[in-house]
């Protein structure tokens, strides 16, 4: 008898928990960010791919929207600018990001519409313990071409330089190659990574590494290198002192509409601009 009572009691406890859980699920309604109200009532999915410098902003915006509106699904993939342009052109994604302006050829072929929502710089980075934190562009060329192999020659420790570079489709690579390396060919001994994020963590965890990332990825875990005496930062990029700058683009095929339009519009809204500057980039006007 006692045993049965015990069983019932524990059973009840179960039910209690379940009820609590369900209440929790249904009444704990999310605090809706007013900024995403334009998405209210919209359903469907949005596919985004391409440039990896865009990812932190894209993820944050997607998170904000999806949390407030569970009926909307936004997927964010990397792949690089080249892939982004190609995929949006082929209709594989709704928004293709690129860290460079699509070429005229690309724009014509696919009928792309560009949305430049941020200004960005490409910063040279080293490990934060590295003593070498100032370089001239010709020194940088020496390092990336493989003519200069040891940090000792630059006043650093006696260790081989590990050169990081990006894959062929990267917009960051293209901008860096054109504006920082002045089209110097990169050594084929360089380690190749596939995204800004990978470049950042690769350099941050290797005391003898050098690489380059979007300034949005700069933080205390690594050291930015002053190029020709100019430290890469929001100000120097904005006032044009820092030489390696570019726009961040979100490209669509034809004029935007529906969910895609709302998403792009959000990037230019005050809350969108806030996210962009929170992520270390300079919001651009339409």
């Amino acid at each position, binding site marked *: 008898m006692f045993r049965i009572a015990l069983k019932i009691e524990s059973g009840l406890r179960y039910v209690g928990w379940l009820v609590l859980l369900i209440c929790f699920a249904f009444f704990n309604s999310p605090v809706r960010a007013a900024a995403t109200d334009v998405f209210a009532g919209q359903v469907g999915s949005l596919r985004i791919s391409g440039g990896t410098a865009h990812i932190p902003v894209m993820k944050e915006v997607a998170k904000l929207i999806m949390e407030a509106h569970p009926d909307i699904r936004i997927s964010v993939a990397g792949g690089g600018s080249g892939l982004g342009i190609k995929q949006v052109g082929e209709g594989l994604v709704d928004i293709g990001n690129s860290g460079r302006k699509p070429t005229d050829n690309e724009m014509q072929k696919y009928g792309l519409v560009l949305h430049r929502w941020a200004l960005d710089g490409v910063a040279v980075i080293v490990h934060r313990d590295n003593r070498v934190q100032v370089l001239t562009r010709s020194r940088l060329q020496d390092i990336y071409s493989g003519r200069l192999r040891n940090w000792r020659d630059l006043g650093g420790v006696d260790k*081989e330089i590990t050169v990081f570079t990006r*894959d*062929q489709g990267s917009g960051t690579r293209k901008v860096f190659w054109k504006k920082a390396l002045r089209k110097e*060919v990169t050594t*084929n*001994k360089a380690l190749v990574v596939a995204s800004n994020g990978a470049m950042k963590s690769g350099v941050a965890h290797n005391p003898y590494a050098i690489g380059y990332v979007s300034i949005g990825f700069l933080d205390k875990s690594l050291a930015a290198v002053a190029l020709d005496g100019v430290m890469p930062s929001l100000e120097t990029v904005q006032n044009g002192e820092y030489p390696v700058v570019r726009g961040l683009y979100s490209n669509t095929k034809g004029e935007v509409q529906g969910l895609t339009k709302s998403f792009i519009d959000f990037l230019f809204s005050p809350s969108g601009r806030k996210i962009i500057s929170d992520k270390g980039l300079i919001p651009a006007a339409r």
Partner: protein
Amino acid sequence: MKRSVRVGRPLVLAATAVGSLLTLAIFAFMMMLGRPLFSDHSLNLLLTQAWAPDRGLYGIFPFICGTLSLVGLSLLIAFPLSLGNAILIHLLAPRRLARFLHQTIKLMTGVPTVVYGFVGIFFLVPLIREWFFRGSGMCILSASLLLAMLISPTMILVFLESFAAIPTAHIRALEALGGTRRQKLVHVILPGAKTGIITGLLLALGRALGDTMIALMVAGNATAAPESVLDSVRTLTAHIALVMAADFDSMEFKTIFACGIILYLWTALLTLSLRYIHYNSTKLSHDQTF
């Protein structure tokens, strides 16, 4: 009942046919999509040139070298390691320890390769970087060590199976002659397990050739052909994974189909040689019994 006879056979035959067609379709598709490579560029250039898209060179020679050196080194590490472990478990270790080792190795076959890669990046790479004067730690050596860990369990299990398959009569005969454990090993077990050892080696080779994640995460993916074990390399598999994320109308994108075809052919060759060895050994044992 009657109906199940009539339906059953065509049904399973259809399943077999679909499975086989898919297998062949893999090859056909890669040939189809990689065709421009064979017509525009001579195959020779593709296989011997360096990789420098900036200069219009789309050779995958460095990646072939990278793959072979990585796989070669990992086999060089894994083979003695596996043989030693197999001998230890089969012959030398006390029973309980042997069972423990055996279980551990079986468990190791289940470790996902991405986990090896993950631990490699955060544990092995910094170690290698500090131990050696040069290099970034993301190199052939680090990747081979991990790859050796990945393929050893497979090899050990095949070795053990072939050790166990040696007729006890042969071993008893040697024991009756007063043979020591070492003599048993040298005169009976190793010669008797020759086919099994080669089989294990080839299986492990196939596994190492086909692995993507360890090379992709740990070997550094540099596009130069390697000169030392501390150099960073890109394997054919990693090349596919990396360039896949590039613009797919370009010449470089098409090279990944060449990589795919090469990998397919290599593994097919391995499968065929395994067949051949197996066929020969069964024929041999057949001849012996009659």
